């Protein structure tokens, strides 16, 4: 009937274009840039005194002037963050498994974890320093203590959220607890785990700084404290800005890992736009 009756193969609907993907990757940093511009304008417009909130450009110039030293402190903090975070990730998994093993264990263990999490780490610092020595261990321990709890809670919630039908399937196969965990519960819990990791990685940044406040000669936490003590507000804010950037970068790294290795758990793209 129609002339083009035998039309060609239908084409695939195009995926997101390269430009769009690049924009999306750049988005977080554009947002941060926007914030800085706003900040600079606000400081100038409202004449906010620099000892209170210095302008970004001034922060930049004062921080850049001491770049070697700032770099050293940044590396020290990064190290603390990573050790503490890795420790938290490694320990919270078995803890979450333990907590989900039975309601009785959960009721007994959770309060102890809550204690550790809800008391101020600053108060624990003296005990930790004496117990672990005046080296990098106390601040790694503090980082760990600050960030492990959300991980345990999220992983445990994920392990328990598995629909009954999957568990029945496992049981029908006589799967051992461990295999059930590994093959079904953990994969199912991935969105929960990553929500925990996202919280934990940013908390690790906070934890490292708190650790450096109380037990360190170096690191951005120390730099913030000492610059504040010396009334070097721009330098202190320089350290804070670096911390924020570390936080965003690590957060984005977690997001990227989730996207790369667990695409089925990232529902963003499926439902939106």
């Amino acid at each position, binding site marked *: 009937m129609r002339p083009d009756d035998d039309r060609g193969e239908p084409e695939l609907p195009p995926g997101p274009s390269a430009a769009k993907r690049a924009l999306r990757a750049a988005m977080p940093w554009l947002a941060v840039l926007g914030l800085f511009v706003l900040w600079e304008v606000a400081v100038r417009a409202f004449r906010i*005194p*620099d*000892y*209170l909130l210095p302008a970004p450009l001034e922060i930049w110039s004062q921080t850049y002037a*001491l770049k070697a*030293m700032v770099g050293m402190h940044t590396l020290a903090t990064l190290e603390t963050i990573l050790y503490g975070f890795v420790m938290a990730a490694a320990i919270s998994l078995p803890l979450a498994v333990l907590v989900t093993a039975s309601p009785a264990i959960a009721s007994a263990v959770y309060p102890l974890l809550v204690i550790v999490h809800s008391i101020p780490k600053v108060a624990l*610092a*003296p005990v930790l*320093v*004496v117990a672990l*020595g*005046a080296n990098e261990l106390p601040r790694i321990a503090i980082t760990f203590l600050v960030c492990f709890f959300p991980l345990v809670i999220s992983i445990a919630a994920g392990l328990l959220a598995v629909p009954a039908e999957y568990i029945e399937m496992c049981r029908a196969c006589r799967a051992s607890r461990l295999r059930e965990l590994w093959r079904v519960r953990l994969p199912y819990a991935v969105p929960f785990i990553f929500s925990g990791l996202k919280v934990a990685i940013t908390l690790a940044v906070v934890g490292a700084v708190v650790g450096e406040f*109380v037990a360190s*000669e170096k690191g951005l936490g*120390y*730099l913030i*404290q*000492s*610059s*504040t*003590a*010396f*009334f*070097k507000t721009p*330098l202190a804010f320089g350290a804070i800005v670096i911390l924020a950037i570390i936080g965003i970068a690590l957060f984005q790294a977690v997001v990227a890992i989730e996207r790369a290795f667990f695409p089925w758990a990232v529902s963003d793209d499926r439902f939106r736009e």
Partner: protein
Amino acid sequence: QDRVTLQLDWIPTGEYAIYYNAIDNGFFREQRLEVTINRGQGSGDTIRRVAAGTAEFGVADIATVMTARQRSNDSRVKAVMPVYTKPPHSLFVMKGSGITNFKGLEGKRVGTTPGNSHQIYLPLLAAANNFDPNKINWVTTDPGAMGAMLINGQLDAAPFFQTHQYFQNKQAQRFNREIEAIPYANFGLDAYASTIIASDTMIERNPDLIKRFLAALQKSFVWARDNQQAAAVIHNKHHPQIDVDDALGSLRTGLTFVFNDVTTRDRLGQFSAERLRLTYDLVARTQQLDLNIDPGSFVVTNLASGS
């Protein structure tokens, strides 16, 4: 060669140049010592660390040493040498505010922090200075916010060690303001402040090590007094965040608490029983401690040579 650690009481602002130059000038090495200097978290924390053996020596306010020793059975540390023979406590006010003495604080907003010694000592000076401490309006706030709030006019006075005046004032000057200090020492607060502390165990087992350490420190105090510019440069090398100029400003003020009429009278590094008594009376009254204790039990006087 003995390796020891000196635990400071706070973050090393410029006045701490009196310690750091001993490293660079080799004063410790001369005494066969290899010293690491750690910043501190307040006198209490320093005492804990020294008592627990995490650090061999510490810098701590003698008031805290006295309190700690009575409140805790296990915090067995003593002061082995005075550093500040006068208290560095002061209130910062803005020039032109009309406040020049404690009487002028009545009805004014004065900043404080939890457990701040400035707030605790002030009532003790009331009688001598004829003011009513109850009329002072204390505002608890963040230590970091204090300077800003003062310059902003949210506080009329802020408690600071006088050593911080120089660099705070520099900021204020950029806004055409000027900070003035009302030093407690000038209004009748007669007491020791910073001291070098060591644990009882250490004092008992290794008095020689302490002697060597104190000797090196005395040398470095004197050197800093005589070479202030050079000491500030050394301090800046250890703490690049602090400009040489700021370090120098703080050091200059700090030295007035190390070297002054009291020091001249009692000689550098020596406690006098009479001033110890005054100090303890003060502490005991503010902390509700037993007044009948011999203040000599908090110190060891025979390890530092007088010079």
